[in-house]
């Protein structure tokens, strides 16, 4: 329908394309929720395979940690620089530490970690499971009476739920440290005051809310990327498509769910 209208009126092409994407997205959300329910159902049943979960936690941590740390430290630094420039205009430079701490823990720590993990871990999960799909390894599991959801998807989801908050804690700490470095070493703020302002207004709830968000992001990224891998088809090219799709969809899921989670937590 949108094709015809797009030809008739170029102004309609954009809403048409958007509509198509939204429709595809909704279909995909339907499929993903089916996998979510299946993971929940099979995840609560023994055996629990702690060894597989630890392996996935390790993979996830090792994969994403370096990039998370680098991103977080520079984000903390730029945040200090920017807020200093802005706040100087109304003589509020002393609040730089507060702004960095609140932004990192509440928002940037979890979201940046989520986006980076979407790119790193999401891609690697989709590529690995996608390869297993197109080389019939997932079929082989099924024929041996082992559920691929239970064996492959559940450990990854649990690892995501546990590891994203861990990565986020590192991001928070490193980001705040980066802000401190810029504030104190470059902008010559008083170190005692900077630290006092950092922790005076920071509440446990700020940190916890960030970690809860991170946990949800971790579960979503693993779920979506595993789904993309499971449904890959058409050889190496299909695996490539699944990988790109996993990164795009899980990044979007992080950003969209972030808004709703934040509004629930603060509301």
């Amino acid at each position, binding site marked *: 329908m949108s094709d015809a209208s797009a030809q008739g009126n170029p102004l309609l092409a954009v809403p048409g394309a958007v509509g198509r994407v939204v429709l595809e997205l909704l279909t995909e959300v339907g499929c993903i929720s089916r996998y979510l329910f299946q993971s929940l159902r099979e995840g609560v049943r023994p055996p629990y395979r702690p060894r597989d979960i630890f392996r996935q936690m390790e993979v996830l941590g090792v994969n994403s940690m370096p990039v998370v740390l680098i991103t977080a430290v520079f984000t903390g630094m730029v945040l200090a620089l920017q807020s200093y420039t802005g706040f100087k205009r109304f003589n509020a430079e002393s609040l730089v530490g507060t702004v960095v701490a609140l932004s990192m823990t509440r928002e940037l720590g979890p979201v940046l970690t989520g986006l980076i993990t979407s790119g790193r871990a999401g891609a690697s999960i989709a590529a690995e499971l996608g390869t*297993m799909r197109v080389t019939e390894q997932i*079929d*082989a599991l099924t*024929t*041996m*009476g*082992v559920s691929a959801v239970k064996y492959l998807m559940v450990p990854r989801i649990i690892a995501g739920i546990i590891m994203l908050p861990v990565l986020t804690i590192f991001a928070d700490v490193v980001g705040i440290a980066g802000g401190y470095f810029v504030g104190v070493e470059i902008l010559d703020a008083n170190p005692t005051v900077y630290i006092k302002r950092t922790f005076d207004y920071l509440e446990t709830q700020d940190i916890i809310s960030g970690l809860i968000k991170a946990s949800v992001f971790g579960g979503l990224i693993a779920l979506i990327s595993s789904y993309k891998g499971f449904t890959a088809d058409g050889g190496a090219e299909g695996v490539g498509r699944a990988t790109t799709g996993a990164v795009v969809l899980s990044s979007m899921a992080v950003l969209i769910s972030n808004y709703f989670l934040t509004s629930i937590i603060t509301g």
Partner: protein
Amino acid sequence: MIAIEGLHKGFGAKQVLRGVDLNIERGETMVIIGGSGSGKSVLIKHIIGLLFPERGKVLIDGADLCAMNDAELTAVRRRFGMLFQSAALFDSMNVWQNVGFALMQHTALSRDEVMGIAEERLKWVGLTDVLHLMPSELSGGMRKRVGLARAIAMDPEIVLYDEPTTGLDPIMADVINRLIRSVQERLGVTSVVITHDMVSAYHVADRMAMLYKGEIIEVGTPDEIRGSANAIVRQFITGSSEGPITAQ
């Protein structure tokens, strides 16, 4: 034991199976022959419930695979062993872990016991000293044989072989043909073998069926197939490029 009735399956616009009917008796070895791309792998995947028909039925001991829930399907699948055309070894596991995978998952056997069984099954398929190699270190023919060892590791009732001898040298192919026969005699299994290899087909078959254009066009003993009056069957078994089957 296995009954396939009016099986239809297509992918998108492409119709692959157009009403396959086939009965496979308990304890027999049924060989399915047919051209490349004729849908043999698709057919065998319906027998173990990896694919489901658009129309028609697959019955295992009278029970319809389509009507089963997940738990019932899993129970049925565990009576099967399957060798995939691509071997489908788990590339994150070494050879003995591949062969012993189902034993590790479904039995209480210890690691050493599983390794012992894996070693024995690998010996059946002519492989020694490979227990700790990774699949990426194996040749194509070796992967096939590891896949075969994995398929028979759980002493299945029914074994599905998708081109067991493709990619093997003639001597190794003969070893595998003998193995298929001896597994059938020793374990009394029902076997379904897909092959292009007519030597292998005559060797292992109790009965043969030919798949052509989405249907089974002939079923019979090897002798009946050899003496078939059907021009398509005759052309296929003699391997001639001239006749009713044209290369596409």
